[in-house]
């Protein structure tokens, strides 16, 4: 039972590059060691925070996408909570949303091929115009 999660976290802006890489690698090993799989790791760069967090106005945003169970999320959150340079984090389950998007996309594509199909829901009026 693998689910896809997205873990966004913010580290303090004065954290050095190598410290960031070290933190990232520990998180990635934590994922793989508990049977998960890292899908993507992205540094989103420095960004202004919408409100002050621990007296910081800026933060380095990071985004980790991985597959795994709920226990893994728990473990990662625990790690982030105890690691001092991390000032905020948010984990979101994304597989269901992805499934829904794929479904909508498939529906759209099938409509595009057959324009006079029963027009339903939101794409109703626009569907024939796309093919024309």
């Amino acid at each position, binding site marked *: 039972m693998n689910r896809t999660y997205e873990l966004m976290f913010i580290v303090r802006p004065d954290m050095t590059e190598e410290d960031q890489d070290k933190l990232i690698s520990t998180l990635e090993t934590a994922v793989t060691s508990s049977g998960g799989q890292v899908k993507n790791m992205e540094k989103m760069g420095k960004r*202004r*925070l*919408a*409100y*002050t967090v621990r007296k910081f106005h800026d*933060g380095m945003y990071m985004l980790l996408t991985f597959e795994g169970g709920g226990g893994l999320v728990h473990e990662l959150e625990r790690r982030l909570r105890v690691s001092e340079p991390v000032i*905020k984090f*948010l984990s979101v389950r994304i597989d269901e949303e992805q499934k829904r998007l794929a479904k909508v996309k498939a529906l759209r594509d099938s409509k595009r091929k057959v324009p006079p199909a029963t027009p339903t829901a939101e*794409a109703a009026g626009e569907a024939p115009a796309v093919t024309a």
Partner: protein
Amino acid sequence: MADETRPTSTSSAPDGHSGERRPPRSGPGGGREGGPGGRKYFRRKKVCKFCVEKIDSINYKDVRLLAPFVAESGKIVPRRLSGVCTPHQRRLSLAIKQARNIALLPFAGRAA
């Protein structure tokens, strides 16, 4: 409620500034010029931006998309002002709340 300035109309304003986020003048704060009764004015039918532009995913990371639906005060713009349909408003509010949590959007007031 003769509030004609929908967030959808202002959202296309080019905002190529990454450092300082400055949401376009959104619905509720702006056009409040409805006269007494308000019935004399022509009111355009409000449409759901997400239905019209066929935006499927409302993601908390997409601040550019969410910003027009957050008022100056930081509040989520109600459906009756923004014209967003119920299913989309539900997902929109979820995304805004997630974005607030990770400091992409403010809880209250302008983005500091």
